[in-house]
């Protein structure tokens, strides 16, 4: 960068940045600076970059202003705020202090270990030059023109990289088995799941490069990107990246002067959770109902159209170029012995700092929630952390010092999954959460195998019984028995792991289940059928507000006299509870 180009403005334009009006922020910066001839006034060149997600989406739009290598970051910027930044900071050199990010941003970022997310938020995801500027496609060049296929695979095996999508199988070993199959045609598929979106939006070229190296390593000439059509921005940026890679000769025929040819095609998936299962995903690419296949044969033996196929997700592929460039030793030095490297999670729920985080494997949950997450929202007590989406387990507050890795999670009956992490506090009901996940899985079960199709339905019915106060003790035993049956006899991971939230929940929160069943009470006050609203007479000032907001006309009373709620007419909407300014409504 020369002196002439001394002002750089970086605006976050990921899904969240765009949702907060980031595109307008960027264009107003451009317009104001060009219209007012600011470059001439300050004798500096200004450049503008749209960047991907830097994770702290709750404070979007985030804007970096870099003047003479001095970088400051603004948070929650709206288009109307741009003028003042240009006026005071860019023209006069004084940053607008009250709009700068605060300590929470600093602690959110500094406690992470960004490897695959590193370039997201720094480079323009739509520019191949930016990617080349951070040594992009050098790993592909070295792998394809200087390394043998088995050398590439050996490096990946040595790095210890395990699939970032679900089961955590060794990526290198998967590639090796696929390559050893006798067929001449092989396929490689990149699954872009919901948690991978920021990677596709922030640094799509890394995914393409990883896929290219994978294709070379297993001897595939065709790669597929499987992505939901609805992820418009991810699709657009990946498509743009593929076109740029083609123009530069990285995809196509005789890549890097060798006889290796590789082409990438999109396959647009649909809104179906089951498509995260690899054989169901292949059925979907082949244009059929996404129902899992019986294994063996495994996809690496007979996959897409019966040919040996490797499926990895976008995060796994994003790691590949870095491992080739920096070496297996570099990668395995991060994380734990058995779970190397880093993992991306979307930290969400009742923590202060929600966002996209990347941590070294093995980091204790406590450090994630209280370090990166900045602690609980409203300093409430943490109840549980859920990892791995609807098929993951619930981790209670007492186990927060456990490190997050494949081994520990599998020991307690959970999975790493693709990277969802939701934090619950004391206002959340474990039974109700479990019922929510079961509702989802029951709806998403493809219906091919009876243990999953019938099991999820029966489990949902029993969980509903508990939340409605109609359950008996024996229902818990039935739930446990069903869980065991589904785990051992379902065809695919969806059915096998569907009971994880229930089993882990029952292990750590048995009392909560028992209170629902025995006392017909929901300690968290969530299960509608089990709660009642009543007026605490001492506190009621008779302001009539509750009477006015009640949609069912269940509240009666005169002005300045304690009101009462008719339990039979109450629809338990909680409107009175929320409206009361004196804390005079009791919910129990």
């Amino acid at each position, binding site marked *: 960068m020369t002196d002439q180009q001394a002002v750089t403005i970086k605006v976050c334009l990921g899904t969240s940045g765009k949702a907060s009006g980031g595109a307008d922020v960027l264009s107003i910066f451009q317009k104001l600076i060009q219209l007012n001839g600011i470059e001439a006034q300050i004798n500096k060149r200004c450049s503008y970059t749209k960047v991907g997600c830097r994770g702290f989406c709750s404070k979007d739009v985030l804007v970096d202003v870099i003047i003479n290598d001095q970088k400051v970051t603004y948070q929650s910027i709206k288009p109307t705020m741009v003028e003042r930044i240009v006026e005071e900071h860019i023209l006069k050199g004084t940053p607008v202090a009250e709009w700068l990010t605060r300590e929470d941003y600093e602690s959110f970022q500094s406690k992470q270990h960004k490897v695959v997310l590193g370039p997201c938020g720094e480079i323009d995801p739509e520019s191949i030059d930016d990617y080349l500027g951070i040594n992009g496609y050098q790993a592909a060049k070295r792998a394809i023109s200087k390394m043998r296929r088995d050398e590439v695979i050996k490096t990946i095996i040595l790095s210890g990289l395990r699939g970032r999508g679900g089961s955590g199988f060794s990526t290198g070993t998967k590639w090796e088995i696929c390559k050893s199959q006798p067929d001449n045609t092989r396929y490689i598929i990149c699954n872009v799941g*919901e948690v991978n979106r920021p990677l596709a939006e922030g640094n799509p070229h890394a995914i393409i490069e990883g896929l290219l190296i994978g294709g070379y390593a297993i001897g595939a000439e065709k790669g597929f990107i499987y992505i939901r059509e*609805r992820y418009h921005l991810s699709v657009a940026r990946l498509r743009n990246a593929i076109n740029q890679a083609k123009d530069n000769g990285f995809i196509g025929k005789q890549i890097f002067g060798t006889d290796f040819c590789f082409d990438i095609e999109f396959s647009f998936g649909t809104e179906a959770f089951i498509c995260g299962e690899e054989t169901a995903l292949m059925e979907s690419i082949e244009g059929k109902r996404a129902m899992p296949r019986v294994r063996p044969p495994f996809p690496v033996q007979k996959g897409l159209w019966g040919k040996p196929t490797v499926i990895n997700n976008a995060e796994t592929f994003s790691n590949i170029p870095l491992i080739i460039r920096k070496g297996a030793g570099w990668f395995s030095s991060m994380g734990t012995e058995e779970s190397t490297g880093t993992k991306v999670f979307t930290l*969400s729920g009742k923590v202060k700092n929600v966002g996209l985080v990347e941590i070294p494997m093995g980091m204790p949950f406590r450090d994630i929630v209280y370090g990166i997450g900045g602690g609980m929202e409203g300093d409430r007590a943490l109840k549980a952390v859920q990892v791995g989406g609807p098929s993951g387990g619930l981790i209670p507050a007492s186990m927060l010092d456990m490190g997050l890795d494949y081994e520990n999670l599998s020991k307690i009956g959970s999975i790493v999954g693709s990277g969802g992490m939701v934090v619950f506090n004391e206002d959340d009901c474990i039974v109700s959460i479990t019922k*929510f996940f079961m509702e989802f899985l029951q709806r998403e079960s493809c219906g091919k195998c009876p243990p999953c199709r019938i099991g999820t339905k029966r489990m949902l019915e029993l969980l509903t019984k508990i939340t409605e106060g109609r359950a008996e003790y024996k229902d818990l035993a039935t739930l446990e028995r069903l869980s065991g049956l589904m785990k051992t006899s379902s065809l695919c991971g969806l059915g096998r792991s569907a009971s994880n939230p229930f089993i882990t929940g029952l292990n750590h929160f048995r009392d909560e289940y028992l209170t629902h069943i025995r006392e017909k009470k929901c300690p968290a006050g969530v299960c509608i059928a089990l709660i009642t609203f009543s007026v605490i007479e001492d506190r009621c000032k008779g302001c009539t507000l509750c009477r006015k907001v009640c949609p069912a006309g269940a509240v009666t009373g005169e002005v300045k006299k304690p009101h009462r709620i008719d339990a039979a007419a109450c629809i338990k909407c909680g409107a009175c509870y929320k409206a009361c300014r004196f804390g005079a409504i009791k919910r129990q």
Partner: protein
Amino acid sequence: MIMEQKLKAILDTHTKSKGTLITLLQQTEAAFGYLPEEAVVWFSKKLDIPASRFFGIATFYSQFHLKPTGKNTITICCGAACHIKGADKILEEVRSALHLGKGDDTAQDLSFTVQNATCIGACSIAPVAILNNQVYGNTDAEQVVKLVKGFEKEGEYTGFEYD
């Protein structure tokens, strides 16, 4: 017939690009806003594939509709992160604002189709609603209902509003 011309064009692309039945149905849905029965029967005859195979796919994936859909789509994300931040309530209020009956997803006047998405991966700005292609984060029932109602009046979406 306009419909037949459209179908021919879709079939042409399908044959040229060696597409699958899913891509064929996706293109049909994009052209008509839903999958008209006549279209499916037409393809079934031309391709000599039983219509049941098409309907099997169409009913498996929630993206396909067998009835006409609305001019606009409002999607409420109902993943875990959005769920605990009240996605249910948003969905319920939007549905009632559009007077949708049980099992319906499209308003009578075809102004809107309401969908719920499984996780869309924008958990850090939960709860999330998507109006056509515009994502709204940290939203609530009031804002989403306002979006939908604003549409009814103006008929067309005019841009993003800041608070």
